[in-house]
C-alpha cells in the first residue's frame, strides 16, 4: 500500500531561514500520527505542507503516491481538513462557520443544516449555533473550529495543537472522537501537541521535531548536552551516556521509552548504559503503566502490569534503568 | 426621447442671460423639435461644431466664426442680433478713463496708470475682442496689474469687484451681475465695442448626421419676425439686452 503522505528531502525556508529539513517522512493511512517538539521547531510549518497550504522549496511531497504541485493542490485540499493553531472564525454565526466548507462543496442547503446541527450537537455546542463568532470564549472558538473541520468528513484530519483552550472534559471527548475516526471510519489524523502524555496515549506513531528535523520517537526522554567524540559518550548536565561510535556531534539525545529496561539490581548484559534511580511517579495508561525514574536525569519507561508485578517494584523504590547504546538518537 | 432634437452649442453668456428660455419654446412647439442647448465657452462651442457633435452654433466671435466657415465646418454665418461690450471699473474711476470715447485709448490709459485689469484670458469672444483692442492701442499687456484669470465672464466680474479692478464685459452679463457688484460702467458706446451674434449650421457635407432640416428651420425662425421680436422685447432688469439684426 502506498503511504498517505511521503516527504523526501523536503526543505522549506521563510525568507533566508531554513525551517524544515526533512530527509524522509511517511504517514501511513488509517493511523494517528503525533508530532511534538519545542516552540519554533517547525511543527506548524510541516502541517502547512501536509494541508497543502504551502509547497516545499525543494524535495518531493507525495499524497497517496501522487506528487503535490500548484496544479492539483487546490483539488487535494478538499480531501483534508486542517484546524490551524490559532483558528480564525469568520464574522458570521457559528452555524454559518460550520457550514462554510459544505457550502464550498456545493452541498444542498438542508443537507448543510442537518449536518452542521448534528455536529454542533455532538460537540455539545448546539446552544451556540446562532451566536456570532465574535462573541465566544477561547475554548468555544476552538470547538467551533474543530466542528468546522470535522463536518467535512475528510479522509485526513490535520490538527495543530487541537486541545489548547479546551477544558478537561472536552479534551477527553475529542481524544475518543479521534480514536473513533481511525477505528470506525478508517480516517487518518496528524496532530501536534506539547503534552507528551496525550501524544503517547492517542497516537500510533510519535515524531519529535527539533530545529526543523524529524526524529521518530517521543520527546519524553530528551536530554541536551554535547558529544565527547573520541570516548563515544554524550554528556548531559547530570549523566554520561554511551552512544554509537559513528556519532560525532549533536546537542540532543533521545531514548524511546519502550527501549528502557528496568530491574531491581544492576544487570550483567550487553547494555552499555545502566543508571540507578528512584521511582517518583506511576501512572496507569490504557493497559500499560508509565514509570518515572529520577536517576540524575528523569527517565520515563513504559511497562506492562505483569512486568510490574514480576519486578515487584513500588513507588519510591530504588530501581536500575538500562538501555543499549544503539537505542539512543543523537542530533 | 422620441421627439426630433436639435443640438446647439452656444456661449455661456447667451444662455445665462435667459434669452433662449423665451426664444425657444415657440419654435419647439411649432416644429415639435426639442432644442438641446449645450452652453460652453466660445472656443469649445466652435470646436464641438468642428467635431460634428452639434447641429448648430450660436456664438459671438466674428473672426473665429469666419475661420470656421472658411474651413468648411460651417455652411454660412447668419447675423441674428448684437449688443455691446462695456468697460467696467470701480466707483469713482480712479484711472480716469471714463472721459475717453475710444476704447483703445481708454485701455492705453489704463496701462499707463497701472490700474489693475482682469482679463478673461480664455480665448472667448470677449477675450478676443479685448486682445484686438489692446492691439489697436499698440500695447502688449502684462505685468502685475494685468491678471489673466481664464474663467467665465461672471467670475471675472466677481474677481474684478473683489480687487477693485477694471474689466471688459458684455453688457448682458454685466446687467445680470449689476446687483451683486459695485463695479460701474466707465466706457460704453464706442464703435469698437460692437458685439454681433451669428448662428451657423454645421456643414452636413462634413457631418452627414447633422439635423439639417431642423437647423434650417431654426435659422429661419430666429431670423423671422416672430423670433426677432422676441429678441427685441427681451429685457433684464427693465433694460433691453439685445438688438435684432434683421428687423430694425
Amino acid at each position: 500500500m502506498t503511504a498517505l503522505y511521503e516527504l523526501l528531502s523536503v526543505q522549506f525556508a521563510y525568507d533566508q531561514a531554513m525551517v524544515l529539513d526533512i530527509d524522509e517522512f511517511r504517514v501511513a493511512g488509517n493511523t494517528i500520527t503525533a508530532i511534538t517538539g519545542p516552540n519554533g521547531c517547525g511543527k506548524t510549518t510541516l502541517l502547512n505542507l501536509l494541508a497543502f497550504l504551502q509547497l516545499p522549496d525543494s524535495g518531493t511531497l507525495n499524497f497517496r503516491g501522487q506528487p503535490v504541485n500548484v496544479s492539483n493542490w487546490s483539488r487535494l485540499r478538499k480531501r483534508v481538513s486542517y484546524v490551524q493553531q490559532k483558528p480564525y472564525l469568520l464574522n458570521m454565526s457559528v452555524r454559518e462557520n460550520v457550514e462554510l466548507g459544505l457550502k464550498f462543496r456545493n452541498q444542498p442547503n438542508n443537507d448543510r443544516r442537518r449536518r452542521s446541527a448534528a455536529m454542533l450537537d455532538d460537540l455539545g455546542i448546539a446552544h451556540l449555533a446562532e451566536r456570532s463568532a465574535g462573541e465566544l470564549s477561547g475554548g468555544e472558538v476552538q470547538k467551533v473550529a474543530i466542528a468546522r473541520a470535522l463536518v467535512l468528513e475528510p479522509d485526513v484530519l490535520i490538527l495543530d495543537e487541537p486541545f489548547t483552550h479546551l477544558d478537561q472534559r472536552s479534551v477527553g471527548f475529542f481524544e475518543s472522537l479521534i480514536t473513533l475516526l481511525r477505528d470506525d471510519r478508517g480516517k487518518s489524523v496528524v496532530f501536534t501537541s506539547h503534552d507528551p502524555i496525550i501524544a503517547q496515549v492517542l497516537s500510533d506513531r510519535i515524531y519529535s521535531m527539533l530545529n526543523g528535523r524529524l526524529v521518530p520517537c517521543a520527546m519524553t526522554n530528551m536530554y541536551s548536552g554535547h558529544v565527547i567524540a573520541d570516548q563515544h559518550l554524550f554528556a548531559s548536565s547530570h549523566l554520561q551516556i554511551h552512544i554509537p561510535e559513528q556519532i560525532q556531534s549533536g546537542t540532543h539525545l533521545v531514548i524511546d521509552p519502550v527501549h528502557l529496561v528496568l530491574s531491581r539490581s544492576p544487570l550483567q548484559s550487553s547494555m552499555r548504559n545502566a543508571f540507578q534511580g528512584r521511582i517518583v511517579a506511576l501512572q496507569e495508561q490504557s493497559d500499560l503503566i508509565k514509570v518515572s525514574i529520577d536517576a540524575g536525569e528523569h527517565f520515563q519507561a513504559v511497562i506492562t502490569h505483569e512486568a510490574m508485578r514480576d519486578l515487584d517494584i513500588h513507588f519510591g523504590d530504588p530501581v536500575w534503568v538500562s538501555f543499549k547504546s544503539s537505542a539512543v538518537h543523537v542530533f | 426621447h422620441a421627439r426630433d432634437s436639435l443640438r446647439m452649442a452656444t456661449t455661456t453668456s447667451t444662455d445665462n442671460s435667459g434669452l433662449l428660455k423665451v426664444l425657444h419654446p415657440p419654435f419647439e412647439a411649432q416644429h415639435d423639435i426639442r432644442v438641446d442647448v449645450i452652453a460652453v465657452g466660445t472656443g469649445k462651442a466652435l470646436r464641438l461644431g468642428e467635431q460634428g457633435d452639434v447641429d448648430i452654433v450660436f456664438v459671438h466671435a466674428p473672426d473665429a466664426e469666419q475661420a470656421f466657415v472658411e474651413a468648411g465646418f460651417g455652411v454660412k454665418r447668419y447675423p441674428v442680433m448684437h449688443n455691446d461690450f462695456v468697460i467696467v471699473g470701480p466707483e469713482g474711476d480712479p484711472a480716469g478713463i471714463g472721459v475717453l470715447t475710444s476704447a483703445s485709448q481708454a485701455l492705453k490709459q489704463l496701462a499707463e496708470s497701472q490700474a489693475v485689469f482682469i482679463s478673461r484670458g480664455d480665448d472667448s469672444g470677449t477675450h478676443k475682442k479685448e486682445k484686438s483692442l489692446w492691439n489697436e492701442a499698440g500695447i502688449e499687456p502684462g505685468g502685475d496689474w494685468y491678471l489673466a484669470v481664464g474663467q467665465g465672464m461672471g467670475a471675472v466680474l466677481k474677481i474684478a469687484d473683489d480687487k477693485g479692478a477694471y474689466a471688459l464685459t458684455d453688457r448682458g452679463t454685466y446687467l445680470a451681475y449689476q446687483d451683486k457688484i459695485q463695479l460701474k460702467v466707465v466706457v460704453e458706446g464706442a464703435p469698437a465695442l460692437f458685439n454681433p451674434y451669428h448662428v451657423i449650421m454645421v456643414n452636413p457635407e462634413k457631418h452627414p448626421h447633422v439635423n439639417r432640416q431642423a437647423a434650417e428651420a431654426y435659422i429661419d425662425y430666429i431670423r423671422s419676425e416672430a423670433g426677432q421680436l422676441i429678441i427685441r422685447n427681451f429685457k433684464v432688469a427693465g433694460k433691453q439686452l439685445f438688438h435684432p439684426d434683421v428687423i430694425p
Partner: protein
Amino acid sequence: MDYFSQAIAEALVLVLSLDAEVYTVVWTSIYISILAVCLAAVTSIPLGIVISLKSFPGKPLLLQVLNTLMALPTVVVGLLLYGLLTRQGPLGELGMLYTPLAMILGQWILVSPIICNLTVSAVSSADPRLHTTCMTLGAGTWQQGLVFMSELRLGLMAAVVAGFGRAIGEVGVAMMLGGNIEGFTRTMTTAIALETSKGEFELALALGMLLLLVAFVVNGFLFRLQRKSR
C-alpha cells in the same frame, strides 16, 4: 451672513416647492450616479480582491498606477471619453455623446480606481488567516471572493460610499459628456455650475444643500442595507 441665510431660504423653497424641474434634475443625478457606482462596485471589488490576493511581477507598479488614477480629474475623464464618443471618434457612430449613458460610463471610470484601491487596502489589512482559512476549507476562487466580500463588508461599504460621494458630487464628466441639457442630462452638480456661472450663488448653494440632503438619504439607505446583511 445674508448670503448663507438666503441660500438656506432658497434651499427650503427648492425642497418644499417640489418643482417638476428640480425633481427631474435630482432624479437624473441619483440614477446616473447609483448606476455608475453599481457598475464600478461590480467590476472593481472583484478586481481589487484578485489583485491583492495574487502576487505577480509588476504588482507594486500596478498598485501605484491604481493609486494615481484616483487623481484623475473629472474633466480629463470627460476629455478621454469625449475623444472616443465624438462623431469623429472611434465610437462616434453610437451617438452616445450627451446622453446619460455616456455620463454613467464616465463616472464608472472615475469611481472605479477609488473602489478598487480601497478594496485592495481592505483586503491587505484583513487578518491573513482569512485567506488560509478559506483555502483549508476548500474554497474555489469565486467562493473565496464572496467570502472576502462578506467578511470585509465594512471596508467595502466605505469604498462604495466614497465612490458614491465622488459620483454624485462630480461635475466634469457630467458637463463634458452630458452637456448639461435641460430636462435630459442636467444633474444637480451641472445645475450648480450653471447657477454659479450666472452669478446666482445663493441658488447654487441651495442646490448644493439639496444635493447633500439627497446624499444623506441615499447613505442612510446604504447603511440600513449593510446592517440588514449582517
